[in-house]
């Protein structure tokens, strides 16, 4: 057993551990005896509600969204051939924010209910626009990155402009949604997210060889028989669907897509056969942990998970880069 195996085993064991902790901890602590009572059917109505209707779907939602973001991040980094890439580069975040701003301003209070739909639509439309505009007899990774950044800032300016005209209460609702949180999770939203994710996640697992090859650049990939433009379009579509569904379910949760693949790379190496499940695992863990910290650290107030991921994620990424400062030229 190498240290890598130990870390991997610890990560795998952390999933049930974190899940249990998420069920037990919170405004009202649920004791071990209470948790056990759930299994033999003797639990009180109150315990059942807190654990089964509130905390369990919420923890599973964090797990699912984290898994999705981790996978989307790994795909984005391979397709963009850039270690700093994340789904947001495809304009997903900016598009979701702009669409959110539009419904909030356009429909006033009624718009809040439409935020998830608007978020998904904005994210996918924006990614489609980035892809279409970067097409010149085919696409290139660099062109997608540059156009993604340009369109992203344009949409950002657009949503700031809109927000300036919106009602303060609506803006606050928008901002909370944008900062990314799983607090509104229910079995219903969890089911919807899972349904959206199943197909793209399975396809991503099947595309591991394409992902491996994509990182070598267009010439090498094409010379080995990959249809690079088709492959890139397909993978971007996967990445967009996965992150768009996550945005719809819990708003914009940053940093997971960026750091989960990096952490996973340290654990399982570069090959996507292991990197995709690895990123999924790390992403799920990070978001579960972030949500747990977010709702217990300054209880009874709650920090949106998206803010916690940024608070933990940014220094952690810095640490990773610092540790690897001697690698490469």
């Amino acid at each position, binding site marked *: 057993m190498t240290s890598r195996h130990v870390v991997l085993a610890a990560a795998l064991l952390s999933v049930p551990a974190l899940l249990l902790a998420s069920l037990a901890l919170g405004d009202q602590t649920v004791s071990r005896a209470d948790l056990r009572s759930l299994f033999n059917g003797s639990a009180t109505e109150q315990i059942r509600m807190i654990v089964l209707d509130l905390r369990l779907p919420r923890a599973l939602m964090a797990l699912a969204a984290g898994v999705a973001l981790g996978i989307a991040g790994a795909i984005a980094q391979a397709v963009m051939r850039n270690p700093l890439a994340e789904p947001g580069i495809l304009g997903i975040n900016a598009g979701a924010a702009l669409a959110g701003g539009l419904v909030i301003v356009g429909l006033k209070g009624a718009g809040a209910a439409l935020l998830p739909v608007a978020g998904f639509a904005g994210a996918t439309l924006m990614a489609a626009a980035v892809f279409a505009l970067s097409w010149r007899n085919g696409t290139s990774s660099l062109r997608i990155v540059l156009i993604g950044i340009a369109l992203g800032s344009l949409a950002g300016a657009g949503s700031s402009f809109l927000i300036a005209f919106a009602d303060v209460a609506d803006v606050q609702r928008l901002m909370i949604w944008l900062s990314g949180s799983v607090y509104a999770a229910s079995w219903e939203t969890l089911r919807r997210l899972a349904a959206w994710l199943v197909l793209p996640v399975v396809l991503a697992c099947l595309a591991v060889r394409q992902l491996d*090859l994509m990182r*070598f650049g267009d010439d090498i990939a094409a010379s*080995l*028989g990959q249809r690079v433009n088709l492959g890139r379009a397909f993978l971007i579509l996967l990445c967009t669907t996965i992150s768009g569904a996550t945005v719809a379910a819990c708003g914009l949760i940053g940093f997971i897509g960026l750091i989960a693949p990096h952490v996973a790379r340290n654990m399982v190496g*570069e090959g996507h056969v292991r990197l995709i499940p690895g990123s999924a695992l790390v992403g799920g863990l990070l978001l579960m942990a972030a949500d747990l910290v977010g709702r217990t650290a300054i209880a009874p107030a709650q920090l949106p998970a998206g803010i916690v991921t940024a608070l933990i994620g940014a220094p952690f990424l810095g640490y990773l880069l610092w540790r690897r400062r001697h690698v490469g030229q």
Partner: protein
Amino acid sequence: MSVNETTEAGSGLRLDTLSLGYGNRMVVEGLDLKIPSRAFTVLLGRNGSGKSTVLRACAGLLKPKGGAVLLAGKPLSRFGARECARRIAILPQGPAAPEGLTVSDLVRQGRYPHRSLFSRWSRADEEAVKEALELTGMADLREQPLENLSGGQRQRAWIAMSLAQQTEILLLDEPTTFLDLAHQAEVMRLITTLVKSRGKTVIAVLHDVNQAARHADHIVMFKAGKLVQQGPPNIIMTREHVRCVFDIDPEIVHDAKTNAKFILS
């Protein structure tokens, strides 16, 4: 090692009134060329003469603006991408690998066109990788990260990847540039082995005229997108041709020992 047993005429690569360009700029127009099978062909010419462009088109990396590249009599565009990659391998100039790969990670990529979506890593894949590593002398370094290798070793690792593709035709774009003399000689020796004992067709773009004169079976000289001259080195390596193609006025020295010609500029 499966050497393709089709007839000489059928398996070869032929350029038929091929026109190539980028955007509106034409680089090569109406080029006709037959590449001899199971021989080492070198494309020579000054920078920008179109030789690398022709090489890329031969691998299907660049779509023709007119005419066609014919493989076994059929236009390359009619082959599927994978099928094409099982028959022609190309190593572009100065290839870059993602960080953190080992030699064996790289060489295994060469098996991509041979594997279908659900097929597992097979015995044939393992054999092909092993053979490629041995041919290039990289077997001992297989677990090394690419970043730890010298320039010559890295180049050999890339050639090993192309060999793992097990194609009849191998295209190399300046495989010896940036290598020191010993490593250059090593790469040229490897090419000779591939052609002589493996029956491969190798086409390379080289900058070193003497390397070409000494090792090639067939030389094709380009100038400004036009074919100037082609043939075996002993016949076409004349003062006049070299002067025309490279705009230098050379001395040609004949070495009786190796029966090769050397160009002194």
